[in-house]
């Protein structure tokens, strides 16, 4: 039996598996022309990430990821795509102009450079041992939210309110008359 499936390094192989899935899916999100295909691939990416979260002991976050992110936000995505009944985007292939390509390469190189530069001195700090019971669980994160970060939490509610008002205002038919053309 290959050591990959060996019980104590099972999580690592799971992680790599999920990582590959996430990367492939996100590439597809970016390159597919059909919006629905894009959405589906995005959902796949999110789910794989949720898996990774779980592997990293962030169980609550993984749950939230699946529930809120994949479940709610992506549904809205699909809903809007259906509402606008978008046809395939454009006939021609996505025309990545050289400038944009260069910019992307530059950015990727930057991020990789940053990662490498800080990786060695950051990673020098030894990994802390975790107490699986109390880490990443609903209880611990809940405590955090309602004790340490209470203000931030309340602010998010305000944040959401503004979002709702904005969305309603922008999208409502009455205001659209303001459009000039």
């Amino acid at each position, binding site marked *: 039996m290959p050591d990959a499936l060996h019980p104590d390094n099972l999580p*690592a192989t799971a*992680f*790599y598996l999920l*990582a590959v899935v996430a*990367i492939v899916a*996100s*590439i597809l*999100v*970016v390159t597919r022309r059909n*919006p629905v295909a*894009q959405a589906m691939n*995005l959902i796949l*990416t*999110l789910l794989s*990430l949720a898996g*990774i*979260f779980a*592997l*990293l002991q*962030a169980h609550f*976050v993984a749950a*939230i*990821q699946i529930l*809120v*992110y994949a479940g*709610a*936000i992506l549904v809205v*995505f699909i809903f809007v*795509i259906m*509402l*606008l009944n*978008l046809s395939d*985007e*454009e006939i021609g292939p*996505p025309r990545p102009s050289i400038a*944009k390509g260069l*910019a*992307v390469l530059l*950015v990727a190189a930057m991020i990789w450079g940053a*990662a490498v530069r800080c*990786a060695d001195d950051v*990673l020098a700090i030894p*990994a802390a041992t975790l107490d699986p019971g109390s*880490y*990443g669980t609903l209880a611990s*994160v809940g405590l*955090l*939210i309602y004790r*340490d*970060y209470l203000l*931030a939490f309340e602010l*998010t509610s305000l*944040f*959401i309110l503004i*979002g*709702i008002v*904005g969305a309603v205002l*922008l*999208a409502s038919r009455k205001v*659209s008359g303001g459009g000039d053309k």
Partner: protein
Amino acid sequence: MIPLEHVILLSAVLFGIGTVGVLIRRNLIAIFMSIELMLNAGNLAFVGFARQYAGDGAHAVVLFIVVLAAVEAAVGFAIVVAMFRNRGTVNADEVNLMKG
């Protein structure tokens, strides 16, 4: 045991792909999706580090980021809908009122 640098690497790659999506795609919806990707890459990095240094505070932050993503999607789509109704297109190139 998942090595941290791989998690960070994954996060960087996802973030890069998201950026490419934002810069290349002409369709606003595609741009929004790419932004979602970038946000998720961020979340992954948070969780990765949290796992390494047992700082579960990051989980709260990830939560807030998810909220942010939600609100952003909502407002974004409102704009897209308004624009679609006015301009009949969601193509980013046609919308250049801000020309200098």
